[in-house]
């Protein structure tokens, strides 16, 4: 069993949150409050030093006395305008920095996302359906590339809204929904794996780090 004070605190906090699974209770609520408080505080400190202090303040006033970057003032002003949201009277002014962020994100995403997730994906789908190796046909790879091509095309057709899903078009769309379901099924399986990993991590902490029952 651990003799470290911190490990005990951590273990009790873990149990406190898990107690909600049985029933809502004051112990859970205390742990939840500590969680909200400590996490908000943690993030605030990280942003304070790594950004506001290190980048903004020392960027404008370099510690070695060099000339600072005057452009950073723009960011500082936008940031301060952001804080105006706290006031009901001049809260509307916070729309300026918000517009800036929304616009910048839109601009960056519009092209970058399009390049990586559309153009590059279209380009890399243009593969030969028949894959040969040496003299003969590599059947495994051939089936694979046929499957990829069919999945992409039929999936896109399913999400095509300008034409009714009838006839051959409807048939392809049907294949599309099957591939989409396989895709979702796989991500479902992976999600289970992820969540279970988290639980295993916690259990390992309780039985290993705290109680010392696992070596």
């Amino acid at each position, binding site marked *: 069993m651990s003799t470290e004070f911190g490990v005990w605190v951590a273990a009790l906090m873990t149990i406190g949150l898990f107690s909600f699974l049985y029933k*809502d209770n004051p112990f859970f609520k205390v742990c939840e409050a500590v969680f909200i408080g400590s996490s908000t505080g943690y993030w605030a400190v990280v942003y304070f030093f790594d950004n506001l202090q290190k980048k903004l303040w020392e960027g404008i006033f370099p510690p070695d006395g060099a000339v600072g970057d005057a452009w950073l003032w723009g960011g500082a002003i936008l940031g301060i305008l952001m804080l105006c949201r706290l006031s009901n009277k001049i809260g509307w002014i916070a729309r300026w920095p918000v517009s800036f962020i*929304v616009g910048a994100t839109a601009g960056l995403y*519009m*092209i970058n996302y*399009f*390049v990586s997730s*559309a*153009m*590059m994906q*279209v*380009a890399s*789908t*243009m*593969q*030969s*359906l*028949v*894959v*040969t190796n040496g003299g003969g046909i590599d059947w495994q790879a051939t089936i694979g590339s046929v499957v990829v*091509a069919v999945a*992409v*095309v039929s999936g*896109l*057709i399913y*999400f*095509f*809204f*300008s*034409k*009714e*899903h009838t006839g051959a078009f409807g048939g392809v769309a049907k294949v599309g*929904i099957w591939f*989409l*379901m396989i895709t*979702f*099924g796989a*991500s*479902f399986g992976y*999600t289970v794996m992820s969540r279970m990993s988290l639980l295993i991590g916690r259990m390992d902490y309780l039985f290993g780090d705290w109680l010392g029952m696992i070596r």
Partner: protein
Amino acid sequence: MVSTANQGDRRCATNLIRLLLVTFAVLLTFLHNRALADNSAVDTSSVVSASITPLAPPTSLVVSDHVYDNAERLDLVWVPSIDDKLIASKLIEYRVYRITDSGDGQRIAVLPAGANSFSDENVESGHQYSYYITSVGADSEFPSISSEPIEPEREWLNYHLISLLLICMIIGVAITYFIETARRGKKLFIRRIAGLEAIDDAVGRATEMGRPILFIPGIQDMDDVGTVAGVTILGRVCRVVAEFDTKISVPTSRSLVMTAARETIKTAYQTAGRPDKYSDDMSNYITDEQFGYVAAVNGIMVREKPATCFYMGTFYAESLLLAETGNSVGAIQIAGTSNPMQIPFFVVACDFTLIGEELFAASAYLSSEPKQLGSLKGQDLGKAIALTAITIGVIAATGSSAWHIGWMQDILNALESIFLTR
């Protein structure tokens, strides 16, 4: 990149310029060397001891900025050393040295004998670079004259992205065009969406059973497109609800969403001719906190036992918790979300699920709002381009690799040069 002819022209022109520059430089160096020789000035050979064979350094080194790039490349050309011979050459290799901002020379490349050009792709704008090249023999190294310092430039157009720009423009223009068309009142066709008929049945069922309907518009704020689509669908649901006179409850996790929901419900009741039946209690704000909101909604479900639950909007981990509770109280559940990670949970726990973009299509279909309809149409055009390109590309790739058909390879190359932006 977009047309090979164009590129050829350009290359031709640059080569011509380069040739002129080189000729000019050769002349200059010649004169310069003559001058040096006349003054019998100290040159590099004096450093070299008599025991090693002297080698002539390369001459006429010209460094030029690479065109149409983001200041990331400088091109070097030179005339090889006269000792660089095909047979029995004493010259083994050339070494390229770079001086950054008048610092010390740094070796950046070693090239085999016979080389007369090099591209340094490791430069930055805002720095001055000059270069010298050495002839290297078995036991000696002789430097050329350093080139003039040059700074790589950021050009006006990143030329190899021109096809990307074109495609972006086509889709962008199409979207704005369709939005405008829809605004002018032209009807744009959108296909029927499977889950939508289920809405009427589900509302009818709640009426028969005399139990309420629960509508969850996601946990995001009104700036999220998913939430907007959810609230739009709420309008349609409410029109049926008003006709059947069923009870509806819309708990929200953002106060702005509550305001929007109330407006929507009110309008729906007015449209259905039942403004008297509307009350503000139909939509309530609960809390911004994710799990707090879920706990409250689950409480509502267990107490009121709704006959039908709608989940339309943007959902995260709560999708699972909501759908499971709804299932356990025996509700018919209809969901729609664009978050691919949460779709699986809705598909297996709900009776009907609008998958991904179907949510937006449903919302555009129901509201016929120009903004939504136009975007959807523009995106469809994008998909049509992608589909065509993939189909032609796959056929061409198959033809060229399996049956070695030459022109198919050309088509494939052309398509790849358009879509591969690297």
